[in-house]
């Protein structure tokens, strides 16, 4: 048996009624790169936070070099040799690379010899073959280079176990190749890596072994040589579809939403597709695929988007939310706190998009506003006694219903664009929201949704369009919608040219 550097056994963690981790165990050898895969909510980030001492486990142990440890917090984790490169990098953009490398280090006393720090930082950068200067301000570096700064920071602290959380989500191909060569050289030095990713291709390319988590449980651990891609996908999905999805009854209606040659600088190039009325069209893709940006662009919220957009043959100018709204395109945001809800009561939130409708002899009429809000609250199942409550005091599910309520009751059906329609919504309210979405379909709305939850995509969509880094990979309709095919498209696609061959 190889010497185990890190050993986790029977780790359990609950948040209220939710069990985020249920007795997860895993062993990490010296010089091993271990992939951890799983869908959203599988428990990956909880595991990372436990290892970094951000949460304390309810039960279970973590041992390093065979000795059980209680990780008190991030600084303690660093001293134990654990280090995290998070999805959101933690760099100070206006400081130099050098300052960022030593930022927060306990090795730097108030009076220190800068020359020594400089030498050690330069060594780390050289090891990474970084190709930029120590005095460069971080704000001038590309994302991939910034990631290298973070890794250099970990090297100077002599971290033995690096945890990378979705490190390639925002990187270009060249940057990914660079990162992989860095990881290989770290492995050669005997350091170990925990590599959290959605991208199955990367698992087989860079990792030695792979652990699958699902619903907070450990499902399998295999050397990558001993598992196939399909088996991995099977392990990740595993569960049968819950009964929360209403039956699909796509309705036939005239008129489609047509997107032609949509271009969003840096994200999407020349994307074309249609979304018919009476059906739910889903854009499936990971972070960086451009799916959410496409949805925002159609809602008029991306100012530099170009291309043509039309609804039932009538052109809709891009880049103006007002124009999209007038054409009947309504938007339900994935980020309710930022561009969803107003810091006002539920009543006003429900009528915010068309408050001008509730007038009497030129002035707004509060009784009419109330009546309009009550009608919408009833439509979407928000308790009418809560109309006076601040919208931010509602549960996630009710907040989402308010957003759906706001776009309901239009004089004629239009388009409903939704990013992550059930993010932060508990399971009961999810079923309600799915039923609402079907209801919109029945009325003749065209629904366009994005979701990182593939089960939801398959459960809800009549048409699925898969995206990988700004390009459309496949289109599936009706019975052809297959979760394995979609997962394969959005993780490691065959390039479109290969497909044609």
């Amino acid at each position, binding site marked *: 048996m190889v010497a185990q550097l890190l050993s986790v056994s029977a780790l359990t963690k609950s948040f209220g009624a939710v069990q985020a981790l249920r007795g997860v165990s895993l062993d990490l050898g010296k010089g091993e790169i271990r992939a951890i895969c799983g869908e959203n909510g599988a428990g990956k980030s909880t595991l990372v936070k436990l290892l970094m001492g951000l949460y304390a486990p309810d039960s279970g142990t973590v041992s390093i070099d065979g000795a059980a440890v209680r990780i008190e917090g991030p600084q303690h984790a660093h001293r134990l040799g654990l280090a995290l490169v998070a999805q959101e990098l933690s760099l100070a953009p206006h400081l130099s690379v050098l300052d960022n490398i030593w930022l927060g280090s306990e090795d730097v006393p108030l009076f220190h010899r800068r020359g020594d720090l400089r030498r050690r930082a330069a060594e780390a950068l050289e090891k990474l073959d970084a190709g930029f200067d120590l005095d460069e301000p971080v704000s001038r570096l590309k994302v991939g280079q910034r990631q290298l700064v973070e890794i250099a920071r970990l090297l100077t602290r002599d971290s033995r176990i690096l945890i990378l959380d979705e490190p390639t989500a925002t990187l270009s191909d060249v940057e990914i190749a660079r990162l992989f060569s860095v990881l290989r050289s770290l492995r050669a030095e005997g350091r170990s890596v925990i590599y959290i990713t959605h991208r199955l291709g990367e698992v087989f390319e860079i990792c030695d072994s792979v652990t699958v988590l699902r619903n907070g449980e450990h499902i399998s651990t295999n050397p990558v040589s001993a598992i196939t891609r399909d088996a991995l996908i099977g392990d990740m999905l595993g569960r049968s579809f819950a009964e929360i999805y209403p039956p699909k009854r796509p309705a036939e209606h005239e008129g489609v939403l047509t997107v032609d040659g949509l271009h969003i600088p840096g994200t999407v190039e020349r994307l074309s597709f249609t979304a018919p009325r009476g059906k739910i069209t889903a854009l499936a893709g990971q972070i960086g695929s451009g799916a959410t940006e496409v949805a925002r662009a159609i*809602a*008029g*919220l991306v100012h530099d988007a170009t291309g043509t957009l039309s609804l039932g043959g009538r052109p809709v100018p891009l880049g103006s*939310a*007002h124009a*999209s*709204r*007038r054409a009947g395109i309504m*938007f339900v*945001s994935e980020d309710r706190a*930022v*561009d*969803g*809800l*107003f*810091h*006002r009561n539920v009543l*006003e939130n429900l009528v*915010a*998009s068309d*408050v*001008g409708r509730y*007038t009497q002899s030129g*002035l*707004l009429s509060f009784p009419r506003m109330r009546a309009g809000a009550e009608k919408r609250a009833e439509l979407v199942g928000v308790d009418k006694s809560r109309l006076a409550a601040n919208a*931010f*005091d509602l549960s996630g599910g009710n907040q989402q219903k308010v957003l759906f309520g*706001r776009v309901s009751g239009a004089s004629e059906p239009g388009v409903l664009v939704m990013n992550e329609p059930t993010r932060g919504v508990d399971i009961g309210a999810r079923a309600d929201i799915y039923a609402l979405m079907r209801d919109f379909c029945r009325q003749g709305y065209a629904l366009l949704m994005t979701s990182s939850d593939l089960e939801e995509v398959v459960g809800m969509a009549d048409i699925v369009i898969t995206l990988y880094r700004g390009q459309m990979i496949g289109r599936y309709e009706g019975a052809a919608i297959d979760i394995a095919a979609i997962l394969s498209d959005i993780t490691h696609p065959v390039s479109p040219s290969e497909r044609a061959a």
Partner: protein
Amino acid sequence: MSRQAFALNQLTAVAWLRLLFVAALAAAVALTPGFLSAPSLLTLLTTVSFVGCVAVGMTFITLSGNIMSFSLGATVAACAVTFVTVLNAAGVVAGIVAALAVGGLLSGVQGAIIGGLRANPIIVSIAALALIHGGLNFITGNATVNANPGAGHEILRGKLFGLPVEFLALLILVVVGQVILSRTTFGRHIYFVGSGVRAAEAVGLRVGRVVTGAYVCAGLFSAVAGVLLGLRYNQANMEYGIGYDYDAIAAILVGGTAIQGGHGSAIRTFAGVIFIATIQVLLLLHGFRQEWQYLIAGVIVLLVVMLQTAGRRRV
């Protein structure tokens, strides 16, 4: 659940403190000889009116999420000078119209820059302050413009129903402001933009227009202050309106309008104006010297504002 209950307790505590504050003020007023006499009350109501108009106007800016403007005082001066100049040339009605046009335009341009280009409102208003002041200095040569006797403005002086016209004008502005804010689509849109600019954009509101509108209102209301000053003093110069911006924002905050926008009203601002003025007169009548008046008034304003934010804080 428990957090909500806690917030509720806190809110009632703040409400009690607020009540206590007003009661203490009322007692002080009642126990101060001379306060409730006609002359000092009338002086109070008149002096309060000029800043009051600006404060009600600035409430639009604050509610729209743009904190405050530093250029409304200068706008008052520009409007006062415009009013007196045009009054001499073309009569009182033309004077009022010209002053309103100048006020609406000066402020509206800033609103278009702030709302349309998402420029920082503080910086734009400071730049505007310099430009307005410089322009006014250039045009008037820092001289005082005097109204010609018999220009027709004298009929707008004095009292109506026993109240000074300045105060009546303020009351009208408060009512007009309140109606615009709470009973028109435009007013509701100001609240929406102020309580979530990105959400407002996402539901298709034209944020640039709403913000521009709010600044136009602020300019028009400040122009009224300029006209009132010109009427009262029969003249106008660049020194008018200096310090009004600070007094106005103090009144807005004391009234309980949120500095981050989206919550508050014209009536609240009116209450704030009266509150601060009352304290100032009280201090004056009790023989505090000017510097003590400023100090004590400042401390009280600070306390009240702290009380307001304590009642509203959310985590």
